[in-house]
């Protein structure tokens, strides 16, 4: 079932129907709906994962800041699948329940993030993912006071890759795995 209870809009391939070049992703079991959907166009699977994989990994900025970007962007874009998945990942990465709730917009940002530097980083993420058009200089300057240029470039790539996945998962109505839904219920963050 999809995010809002509907079925996925596209066929999610299983191991038996996985194209030759995609079979490596199915060797360890169910690769998840993003891969299972992308495998239908096998020439895109490798390049897409080749971009998204590094863009959503800890990189030089670390897992904590990366999860700020992914969970916050997914929240601003309204991607239920990605919010579900990265609520669990963020908790596993060591973010506190209060930080996760703040990134999800369940509580005010200030309640989860007393640190000015982290709020400035989230301000940059919000400006990228939650608005269109030009980004005011003061948002950039606030972030630059605390974070190196290369960190903001890396976070910008993470936000962009997340927005791609947000629209992909939302448009195709990709379903959240049952074990993730159970985890969120256990954490009181469904």
């Amino acid at each position, binding site marked *: 079932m999809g995010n809002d209870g509907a079925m996925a809009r596209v066929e999610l391939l299983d191991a038996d129907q996985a*194209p030759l070049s995609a079979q490596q992703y199915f060797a360890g079991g169910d690769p998840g709906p993003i891969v299972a959907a992308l495998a*239908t*166009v*096998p*020439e895109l699977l490798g390049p897409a994962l080749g971009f998204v994989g590094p863009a959503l990994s800890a990189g030089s900025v670390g897992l904590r800041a990366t999860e700020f970007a992914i969970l916050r962007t997914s929240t601003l874009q309204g991607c239920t699948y990605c919010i579900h998945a990265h609520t669990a990942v963020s908790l596993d990465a060591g973010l506190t329940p209060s930080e996760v709730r703040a990134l999800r917009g369940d509580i005010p940002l200030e309640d989860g993030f007393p640190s000015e530097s982290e709020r400035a980083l989230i301000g940059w993420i919000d400006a990228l993912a939650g608005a269109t058009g030009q980004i005011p200089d003061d948002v950039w300057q606030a972030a630059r006071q605390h974070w190196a240029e290369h960190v903001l470039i890396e976070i910008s790539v993470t936000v962009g890759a997340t927005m791609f996945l947000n629209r992909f998962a939302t448009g195709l109505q990709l379903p959240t795995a049952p074990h993730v839904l159970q985890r969120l219920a256990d954490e009181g963050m469904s």
Partner: protein
Amino acid sequence: MTDTLAPSRPIAEAVHAGTLPGRVWLYSNYHCNLACSYCLTESSPRSERRILSAEQMVAVAEQATELGFTALGVTGGEPLLLPWLPEAVLEMAQHLPLVLLTNGTLFSGERLERAAKLAHPNVALQISLDSHLPDVNDMARGPDNFAKVVEAVPRLIARGVQVRIATTTAGPADDPALDPLRQLVISLGVAADDHLVRPIVRRGRADELGLGVRAVARDIPSELTIAADGAFWGSFGPTVRNGRLDTDLLLTRTILPLSIPANALLAAILGMPEGADAKLGIR
């Protein structure tokens, strides 16, 4: 800086080395006037047509030549249900030798004269015939199929068309029970060397009925195969089962430029484990 060690024409070199088969197959369409029991594509008059356009087919032929492939094949469905097909085939044959697979039932009246245009040194028709016994043949292939084929073959040959016969069998290719059929084929004017015998592959409708041999990628000749739904590993790749296209042998959804699926096929072949050669004699 360019890599001086990279081959400048990787497809041509792989074909020359025997790493990559030289023939490119095209599924011109999926619909058919017959509904054979072992059909790989569940073809019938009601099938989704999945047509490659004449422009696409000619472009495949042109680009196959440029890349270094050495032959073409056109199959379906029944290709000759497409009225423009003979002209497209002749244009493709300007580039490479071509074999056109047909069920041989559409060669009467005007259609025979249209097919007679295919009397060309670069074109051969491959017609299906599965038994010397009309009832046995027609049980799998449909009513009156045997009579239509044995009538059409000499007529085509008389008009200068090159004809081959293909037999699909549930038994071994060298089964002595096929000897009367081999004699019949020769009596129709087809050379013994132009009579191809191949096993039923358990895909498509044959899979639904439990017919034929199971085959995975390494069992199937890795000929690049182009269909409306994408490019596949082998002519047994773009099969249909219960109305659903099989994607296990799908290489790319992109079919043109042909270099994209051709390079994907070559990469897949080079990624196969050593010794994974075709072993079932599927041709």
